[in-house]
């Protein structure tokens, strides 16, 4: 299978704090890769480096290469705005745009990129909501406020919003941690479906979720990549002692 991200010697800092240390890994295309590790190990920083979101924090710094579709996204000529269109992101707490309807939330990415034709927008909104398994639940009232949906629905709305601009990758930062088990199960099933056509990288502190949902798992500890491999192998027979300790709860 093809490689979507070729990450070489990735380092990241917050001010003087060295948060990611020499990460080298290749992320597979159209597969789900889970990033696990204890709090503070750098998992969120890591995925934020994949769509150049880390650098919007003042005082942050990145070095190394992230090669995506043959181009290092940190090269001088590369526009971060274009990078973020191809690599979408869903956050931990569902954050639909307040004061905007369901329709507007999904359409805004396209509208702000110059798409004006109502028919095109309508079709795109419908397509995205269908992809996110939300269409049936909202189709009767697309004008209602995004904030009036339940937590799980709001998160699927955010997924639809991200999918509307037609990215190739979906980065998810603990997308289910604010949701109840049923909503979580719906989103996990959605992730498996989306993986057929999108590359998905999901950060999770829930090991069982990583085991259920991912094809590959990477274990980060104190900013370093300790182990990376097929999920089946990692959860049945991890090679590294630290991984074994973390998975069996012997940390601390």
């Amino acid at each position: 299978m093809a490689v979507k991200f070729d990450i070489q010697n990735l380092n990241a800092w917050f001010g003087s704090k060295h948060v990611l240390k020499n990460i080298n890994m290749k992320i597979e295309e159209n597969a789900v890769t889970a990033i696990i590790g204890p709090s503070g190990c750098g998992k969120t920083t890591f995925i934020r480096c994949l769509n150049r979101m880390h650098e919007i924090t003042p005082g942050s710094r990145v070095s190394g290469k992230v090669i995506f579709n043959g181009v290092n996204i940190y090269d001088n000529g590369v526009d971060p705005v274009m990078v973020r269109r191809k690599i979408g992101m869903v956050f931990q707490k569902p954050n639909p745009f307040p004061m905007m309807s369901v329709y507007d939330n999904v359409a805004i990415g396209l509208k702000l990129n110059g798409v004006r034709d109502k028919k095109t927008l309508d079709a795109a909104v419908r397509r995205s909501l269908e992809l996110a398994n939300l269409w049936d639940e909202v189709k009767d009232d697309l004008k209602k406020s995004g904030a009036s949906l339940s937590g799980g629905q709001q998160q699927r709305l955010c997924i639809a919003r991200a999918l509307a601009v037609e990215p190739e990758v979906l980065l998810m930062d603990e997308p289910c941690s604010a949701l109840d088990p049923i909503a979580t199960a719906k989103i996990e099933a959605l992730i498996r479906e989306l993986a057929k056509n999108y590359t998905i990288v999901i950060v999770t502190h829930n090991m069982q979720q990583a085991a259920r949902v991912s094809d590959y798992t990477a274990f980060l500890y104190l900013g370093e990549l300790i182990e990376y491999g097929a999920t089946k192998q990692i959860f049945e027979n991890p090679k590294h002692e630290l991984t074994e300790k973390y998975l069996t709860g012997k940390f601390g």
Partner: protein
Amino acid sequence: MSRIIDKDLKELSATLYRMGELAHRAVLEALIECIEGKEAHEEVREIADTLVAMADHVEDKAFELIARFQPVASDLRTIKSYMKIAYDFARFGRYALDISSINKQIGGLRGCEEWINSYVKRMSEKTLEMVRSSIESLKSHNTQIAEKISEREKEVDKMYFEFIDDLIKCGATIKCAVSSVLIIRYLERIADHAAYICESIIYIATGRKEVLR
């Protein structure tokens, strides 16, 4: 750091160890019965039944741990292996019962040729040693003891085939031939299961699936 599951795993391990001791006793008693003619059938039967019940208990407990804790990595391998090992110990009990039944039904090795008796004795000792090794390696998940069993398993296999050759060459009374072949056969199976147990121990400790037979 002590985890909730550790207590249950320790209990399971202790149960298995007890099973091992019981299994060893059953096999020992059954062999003594056949070789020296001492009556022990009821005792062996009781132990065999107990071992089956204990194996069921271990399986149930293991399933409970899986449902409750969703174990992964070494915990998962341990639980899977404990289920297998419990089954292996129950098989020891079953074979012990079979051996004891030979004595009950046709009188064991009473009055048989000396060379047959001593052969069976030697093979019994080797097999019993393997049973003890398997219990020993279970105690501390010791892979070194486990790996050594491979050699002896091959020896027991060799002894099994050699005996059959010898028997055909030398001949014996039907009763002795039937008794001795059956006993040797069961000993070979017991040796196999002892090797299975050691393979499981290696799997728990290293995740590798080695064949020791």
